[in-house]
């Protein structure tokens, strides 16, 4: 399965096992602009899988109402870039309903799926990574998978989690990431980071699409092509880098990250969103507080520049393997 098929598979299971589950959003009935809801309307009927008018605040508000009645609302925002009209509903309403009602009402059944991150030619409004904007919205969970297996397990967990979840799907992976995904019903835990490759010299932390740029950077580091070899000292090529996929942005798995940094003494955080106000800043602050005496180099952030994503400039804006590689080298030699 590729990632969009895995997402579809998760929703199909959710609809099959939970009579109260519905899927809705703009253009989801014919299968969705990224094919994530292919055939669901035919399989489960238009009462359970349906189009909404083109209004993001309406989609979020409608989903909150459904979830407040104990139903399972799986809503889609067509691109994460267009989630801002729903920001009020998500931050002021969804995130706060349990708290403000003294626990009497909740919208735990709400999951908002939305495609995120760069696609190579998305320009300003088809490339954004808005996870950082939601980081201060206590009450929400934010989840970003890196692969089809992850997408299915984390989406099913998000749908069943007793809290409203924003589930951001890296859109460039919809077709490009392919792996064998178990067809049965399974979940992966939220708020749990995953160590992809263990290491002792540096912690490399990321989520979503940049996981692959990080892997590329690590391959180049250990086995550089001739063109890059002069920049990579022999002594660093055998460095053991611990690569971590954060998976849940809020509430994030500080324990795994801090443990790793205490061991390695060095941290590079990679994300596509702009650096200022990005999630990397929050992580860096917590790490310097809890691993201060173990740090051997400053926390390094490799992020988008603090600019919008200009269309023709994208290759120089989005952090790619060479920028990650450079940050690793500088941090290792600090």
């Amino acid at each position, binding site marked *: 399965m590729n990632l969009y098929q895995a997402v579809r598979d998760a929703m199909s299971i959710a609809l099959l096992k939970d009579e*109260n589950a*519905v899927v809705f959003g703009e253009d989801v*009935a*014919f299968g969705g602009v990224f094919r994530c809801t292919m055939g669901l*309307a*035919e399989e489960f009927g*238009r*009462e359970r899988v*349906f189009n*909404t*008018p083109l*209004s993001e*605040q*309406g989609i*979020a*508000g*409608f*989903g*909150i*109402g*459904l*979830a*407040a*009645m*104990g*139903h399972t*609302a799986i809503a889609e925002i067509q691109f994460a870039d267009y989630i801002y*009209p729903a920001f*009020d*509903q998500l931050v*002021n*309403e969804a995130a*706060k*309903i*349990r*708290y*403000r*009602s*003294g*626990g*009497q*009402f*909740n919208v*735990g059944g709400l999951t908002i799926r939305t495609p995120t991150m760069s696609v190579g030619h998305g320009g300003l409004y088809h490339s954004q990574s808005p996870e950082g904007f939601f980081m201060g919205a*206590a*009450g929400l*969970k934010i989840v970003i998978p890196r692969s089809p297996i992850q997408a299915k397990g984390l989406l099913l967990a998000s749908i069943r*989690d*007793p*809290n409203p979840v924003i589930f951001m799907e890296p859109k460039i992976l919809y077709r490009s990431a392919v792996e064998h995904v178990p067809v049965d019903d399974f979940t992966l835990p939220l*708020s749990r980071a995953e160590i992809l490759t263990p290491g002792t010299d540096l912690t490399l932390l990321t989520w979503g699409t940049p996981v692959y740029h990080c892997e590329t950077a690590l391959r180049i580091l250990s086995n550089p092509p001739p063109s890059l070899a002069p920049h990579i000292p022999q002594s660093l090529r055998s460095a053991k880098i611990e690569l971590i996929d954060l998976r849940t942005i809020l*509430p994030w798995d*500080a*324990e795994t990250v801090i443990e790793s940094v205490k061991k390695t003494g060095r941290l590079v955080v990679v994300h596509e969103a702009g650096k200022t106000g990005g999630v990397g800043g929050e992580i860096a602050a917590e790490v310097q507080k809890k691993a201060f005496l173990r740090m051997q180099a400053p926390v390094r952030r490799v992020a988008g520049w603090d600019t919008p994503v200009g269309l023709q400039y994208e290759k120089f804006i989005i952090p790619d393997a060479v920028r990650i590689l450079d940050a690793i080298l500088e941090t290792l030699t600090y």
Partner: protein
Amino acid sequence: MLRSISTRILSRRSLTTARRYSTPNASSAYSEARGHLPHSQSPITSKLHFFNSVTEEGKQIPTYRVLDGVGQVLEGAEVPEIDRDTARKIYENMVLLPIMDNLLYNIQRQGKISFYITAYGEEATIIGSAAALAPDDEVLGQYRELGVLLWRGYGIDAAMAQCFGNQDDTSSKGRQMPVHWGSPSLHFHTISSPLATQIPQATGVAYALKRDPLRRGKNCSAVYFGEGAASEGDFHAGMLFASTIPAPTLFIARNNGFAISTPSTEQYYGDGIAARGPGYGIDTIRVDGNDVLAVLSATKEARRKCVEGGRGVLLEAMTYRVGHHSTSDDSFAYRPRQEVEDRKRSDNPIARFRLFLHSQGWWSDAEEEELKERLKQDVMKAFKKAEATKRWPLSELFEDVYGGEQPWNLKEQKKELDGLLKKYGGIWEPWKNELKKFKDN
């Protein structure tokens, strides 16, 4: 998929037929022979004609009324079926509202509670509509709808506890400002301050009702909002979703003429809120919000249409905000005191209904006196009790942020506050005094 498309075209056609009455005079210029555009049932015309049906003089949407200003039934008006007991219950709730408002307004002035919002002048709109709903219709309010809760038996004690945010406040455990009530057992969703957010939520609630085999065709969601809130994008979204998806949502607009200081003339240029309903394909009525029988009648019928049709219905109640916007507002800064006094005297919803009750022989002056005295005592008793009750334990400040396990950051922060309290709780005056108000401290 094909089938659903053809159904939609059919239903659009029948709607068009039903709406023929609104075709402008230029209809002779329309020719069936010219047909219509694909994706539209609009007939082609050769006449260049703009229309604006809602601002032309004399074309405004009429206001439905049953009782005149002195409680007499209008000629031709049909009095809704109402028995003596229901009528008296409605009246008693209408009388209770300003008594609650008076006390709570005054104790806010004395600094005993932090904030309050009265409903002066809107008693008929709120109680009349509440009485027309089924007790288990889901209500989503704005903040001026305490009367709905009281009608459903919330009780004076619970209302008072919420305003004090003490440990009897189940609405929000003292977390929200006064007047932000809520009760799942009374099907009243907890109020929040952001305006109009409840409107598209009400549509989602209605869709859930429609999907529930036990409540389908039996219940609707009823959403209240002011004419100011109707300017928010969420009003547009809610109306649109309720008509398009569709879902049995009863929209109740309280048009009281003011959004804080902004008069409705600066809020919109069209014919109020009601004029917007037909644009969304939503059945709409405007009603005299100071005439409780008109509100009752119109809401009953609106609710019936809503539940049976499974689609949104809009009711605009025309009223007048007699009180200040809130305790943080002095409305005489933007409207003449005389105007308010005139409205209070000339068009008082409670007095109007009392005159009607008298005319039916259902009420007497002695009963009036007894009721007011009794309610004042009840309210005073509840106030004393609420004032003397401690708050929830301080630790509740970290609870209910998430369902399930509390995340590490909240656990850490709770520990941090505990440490600070141990260190400074007994010596730092602002905390020391405050801590005494909490339970278990």
